[in-house]
């Protein structure tokens, strides 16, 4: 088992990628405005568990969703019933951000077209 510090740095880097559950956990922390200790407490797993959780794969949708999170929670010693709403809220926040970003892009494109026509 690698040291917590080394794995923590790896998890922070890996969280840039949506493949990892850490991506959603980081998003949740931003939305909920809590730090890592706060999230670890919310999930009932401690800092080491949070790092392990972050390095798990993000859940697949559909039939796999709950089973994927159950495996990740078991590996990290986290509470599945608390993890599921955290992940759902992060996914909702991500969808909102994507929509807002698309809206901004569309508005910018419209403005650009209007400026070209004038």
């Amino acid at each position: 088992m690698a040291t917590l510090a080394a794995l923590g740095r790896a998890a922070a880097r890996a969280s840039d990628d949506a493949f990892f559950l850490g991506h959603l956990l980081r998003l949740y922390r931003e939305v909920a405005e809590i730090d890592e200790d706060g999230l670890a407490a919310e999930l009932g797993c401690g800092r080491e568990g949070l790092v392990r959780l972050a390095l798990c794969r993000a859940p697949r949708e559909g039939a796999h969703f709950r089973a994927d999170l159950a495996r990740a929670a078991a590996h990290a010693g986290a509470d599945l019933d608390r993890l599921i709403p955290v992940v759902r809220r992060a996914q909702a926040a991500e969808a909102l951000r994507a929509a807002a970003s698309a809206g901004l892009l569309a508005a910018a494109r419209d403005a650009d077209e209007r400026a070209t026509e004038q």
Partner: protein
Amino acid sequence: MSEGTGRPADERGAAIHAGLLRGDAEASAVLFELHYERVLARLRARYRAASHDLVEDAVVQAFTSYAMRPGQYDPAQRSLGGFLAMAAERDLRNVLAREGRHRSVAIDDVELRDLPRNNEVEDAMAAMVDAEDAAELEDKIVRLVGEPAERRVLALMRDGVRATGPYAEALGLAALPEGEQRRRVKQAKDRLKKRLARSGLLAGRGGG
């Protein structure tokens, strides 16, 4: 031992690989927990002049790439740890090549005297490999060192070989007494280093 390959079976690696192929959520975490720090330490030891950030980025990138596309690894070819180390080193070399393709490193700048290495010849080679794109460096060496035996010596140095035996064999000295082998091998390494320094490959040394 695994059948056919002649190397020990990598049972834990095989389990992680199978888990990633199945899409097990925890498989990527187990991958990092078992292999990350070892691969990181190996790369840091080999690329002492590279920033820790770059090395960590390269290792995470290699692990992520494998976790997302586990089909790129063939367990029949090598151990999972070996594959990850190779992939991370390839990524790091690509990053280093992009960052400073035509730089060479001043040997005195990398505090070689503090490094627990065999001798300064190998340190010099390691610093060069750190600083240069491997293929580019290879081309320069081939142009500079025409003698096949000496080229084999350089390859051994680059690969971090410590024992005198392989060098003695490469130089045709295997029949000599051990002490004499060591002396002649050291001479050969020093000669090569001086030649590299005079060529300008080792900035800060020779060059004129």
